[in-house]
């Protein structure tokens, strides 16, 4: 018997594109909601441009690997919402749905005639989550973001780097991933509130604004102590403190040394380990793991403040040792002795070499009609009664148009044919894909 799903019988009308919005609905889908992705090939963003299409396949709307991983557990309805007929159809869908979610700029849905007031007329208790760059409220609501822009404007980029160097920032759209998390949390809290009270609502989420609370202690150090983060020694790279600068907490936990990344054998691009000692006791354990070298017995390293003051020499000595070991072997030796150490892991490392992720079944194969069989990322939590599982590969564009239009919305097969002919379900000038011809038989 199939396991029950947490969001059984919940239907989501998903206008979202690119990454942040689709990452939110991906998880709602894994939790059991029916996600209906509204797409239109003429202004699609997320399937194309693709830099993750396997080398042996043609780049087209159905072959982006990253789109696949970002859009599992969804169905696709291709629909031109910018026509009155398309709008009518989507309203019929909204009328039997629970959540509407989108991540367009702030006035797009309203301009389509699908603002919150209108949505309420169609479905009185709708939960509407808008995930725009700057939100629907506030003087800069029309500003736009990508992940890196939201990270820069919210203060997150600045927190990453070495002192006196340009910000290193985040090497990916952290706020697309994290923005997706907030989108899912907003949808779920809105849904919970609706189930308890019968009342829907509009939740006005902003990608840029949601980055700001992630700087909480930095901001409190400023509002309470008047200390800004533009100061000597900040950000301190991977260290907890940069030697020779004022000794101030760097908002990542206790101020300790060692606390750094160290090269490991054989010294290739991702051959690094991080090691952290939170106490003198942990430091002494590391000394034992290193074989109790004579340098480590020096009085300057015996206590925390001394290790912070002499961090440069400390780090050089540790690295001379770490270079003799592979990063996984070093990790195992340290952790077996109660020392905090883990390898820097590339994506390949995580998928192929990480024994913990393998044990937890983080990456499981799934068949996709255009991409073939590939690993897909799983949920980082295990719910005992309603596990989050990937049930569907990402949809081909428009793959479920017939199912949704005829079976769910009750239009006739003839109406589906007419809709394809008049450009409601697919642009008239664009060649239909084989599975669409199949639908129209």
């Amino acid at each position, binding site marked *: 018997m199939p396991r029950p799903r*947490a*969001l059984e019988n*919940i239907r989501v009308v998903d206008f979202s594109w690119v990454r942040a919005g689709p990452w939110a609905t991906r*998880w709602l889908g894994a939790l059991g909601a029916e996600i209906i992705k509204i797409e239109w090939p003429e202004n699609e963003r997320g399937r194309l441009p693709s830099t993750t*299409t396997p080398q042996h396949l043609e780049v087209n709307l159905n072959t982006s690997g*990253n789109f*696949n991983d970002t859009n599992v557990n969804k169905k696709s309805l291709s629909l031109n919402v910018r026509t009155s007929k398309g709008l009518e159809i989507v309203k019929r869908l909204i009328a039997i749905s629970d959540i509407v979610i989108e991540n367009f700029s702030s006035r797009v849905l309203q301009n389509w005639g699908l603002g919150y007031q209108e949505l309420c007329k169609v479905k009185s208790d709708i939960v509407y989550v808008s995930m725009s760059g700057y939100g629907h*409220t506030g003087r800069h609501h029309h500003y736009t*973001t990508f992940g890196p*822009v939201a990270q*820069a*404007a*919210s203060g997150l*980029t*600045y*927190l*990453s*780097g*070495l002192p006196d160097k*340009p910000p*290193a*920032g985040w*090497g*990916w*759209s952290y706020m697309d991933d994290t923005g997706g*998390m907030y989108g899912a*949390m907003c949808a779920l*809290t*809105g849904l919970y509130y609706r189930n308890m009270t019968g009342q829907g*609502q509009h939740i006005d989420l*902003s990608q840029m604004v949601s980055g*700001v*609370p*992630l*700087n909480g*202690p930095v*901001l409190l150090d400023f509002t309470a*102590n008047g200390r*800004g983060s533009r100061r000597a020694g900040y950000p301190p790279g991977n260290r907890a403190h940069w030697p020779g600068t004022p000794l*101030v*907490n760097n*908002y*990542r936990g*206790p101020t300790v040394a060692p606390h750094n*990344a160290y090269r490991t054998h054989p010294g290739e691009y*991702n051959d*690094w380990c991080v090691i952290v000692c939170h106490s003198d006791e942990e430091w002494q354990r590391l000394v034992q793991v290193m074989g109790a070298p004579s340098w480590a017995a020096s009085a300057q390293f015996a206590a925390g403040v001394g290790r912070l003051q002499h961090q440069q020499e400390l780090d050089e000595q540790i690295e001379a040792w770490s270079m003799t070991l592979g990063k996984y072997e070093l990790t195992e030796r340290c952790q077996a002795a109660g020392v905090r150490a883990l*390898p820097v*892991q590339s994506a390949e490392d*995580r*998928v192929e070499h990480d*024994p913990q992720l393998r044990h*937890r079944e*983080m990456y499981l194969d799934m068949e996709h009609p255009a991409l073939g069989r*590939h690993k897909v990322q799983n949920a*980082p939590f295990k*719910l*005992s009664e*309603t596990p*989050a599982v990937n049930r569907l590969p990402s949809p081909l564009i428009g793959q479920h148009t017939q199912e949704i239009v005829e079976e769910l919305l009750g239009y006739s097969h003839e109406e589906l044919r007419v809709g394809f002919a008049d450009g409601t379900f697919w642009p008239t000038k664009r060649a239909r894909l084989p599975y669409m011809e199949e639908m129209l038989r």
Partner: protein
Amino acid sequence: MNDAQSLPGPLVGLRILELANETGQFCGKLLGDLGADVVKIEPPGGEPNRNVGPFLDDVPHPERSLSFWYYNTSKRGITLNLETADGRRLFRQLAAASDVILETFRPGSLASLGLDYESLRPQNPGLIMCALTPFGQTGPWRDYLSSDLLHMAAGGAMASSGYDEADVPNAPPIAPGGGNAWHTGGHFACMAIMAALVHRTVAGQGQYIDASIHEACALTTEAAVANYIYRGEVLRRQTGRHHAANPTPRTQFRAKDGTYVCALVAGRLTPKYIGELADLLDINGMAGDLRDFKYQDPAVIATNTSHIIDDLVANFIASLPAEEVYHAAQQRGFTWAAVRAPEQLLEDPHLHDRSFWKEVEHPELGRSFVYPGAPAIYNESPWQISRRAPLIGEHNTEIFCGELGLSRSELCVLAESRVI
């Protein structure tokens, strides 16, 4: 819009017990700011992470940790020693009347105290219990020690973040700061708890959740995993921009005031865009040759990409303060931003328009402090901080006497024997 500020949050009526250290307190804050009654249970004397700085006025004290303050808003606080039989008895009473327990003990710890989910569930079938731990409850790394930096390494953040060789030769991978491993674990755990709560509104049953911070971090590097799975690529680190299989043009430029601007230009260079870019650069008379007719030809644009980005855009940004570039660009439809230090956000009028900042009273100090508020505006049930972090054992009387019916004298005895 209603006067939403006076309404309760979406999780009103929920009682959540939090047994969380630095790894899980953010998840508790999310739930508390969203309206749940989060009761933080600390060991007598308080959680060790009350000793993490920075401290108010740089005076170290367990009631003055700004980190603790921030991550424990909207919670009440009690102390309870679960190593004692009385402590466990009181905990069971609390658990029987709670909706969610969030715990971050090492795997097996609660079971050894007889307080695991299987032991608590019989008296409360609707109970949801979420264990949020570095690696989850099973697997070869289950008992490994961790820290924020360790998760940034193993989760993949560091492999993606760092510097161009030209900017910092031989640079190490860089772990972005701010404690984001804990944030990422908290986001996923919050999502899982919410899903279980929604399920419970329909099914009536609770459940157990085993959440892993390592897995949450490993999921949070955008397309890095897809690049590997579908193309076998390992990505290189680049200054202030995306990891990439092959080097991409820079997107971070130094402004006149010495701070930086994030300007995404490459990949967008069409003749139309060139015209708009010329208008933008012209606000400071820096359009150079951009209005030349030759740029109507995409092939000419392609061969001049480096000139456009590294000369014209870079020089334009270098001629103005970063904030000025940011607003001028965004007003013209460019998706650019100033790379701001967090404290600059206090002056952002957009955040004030959204009533983002929250003045939080600390009555014991006779002062109030400005806290960052919520990511989203709910029009019916606001997401907002309801109170400052609890003092150590602040709500012991309120909860042990007021709710569990202990007498004042019993409370005194429990304090003397270090149960509370």
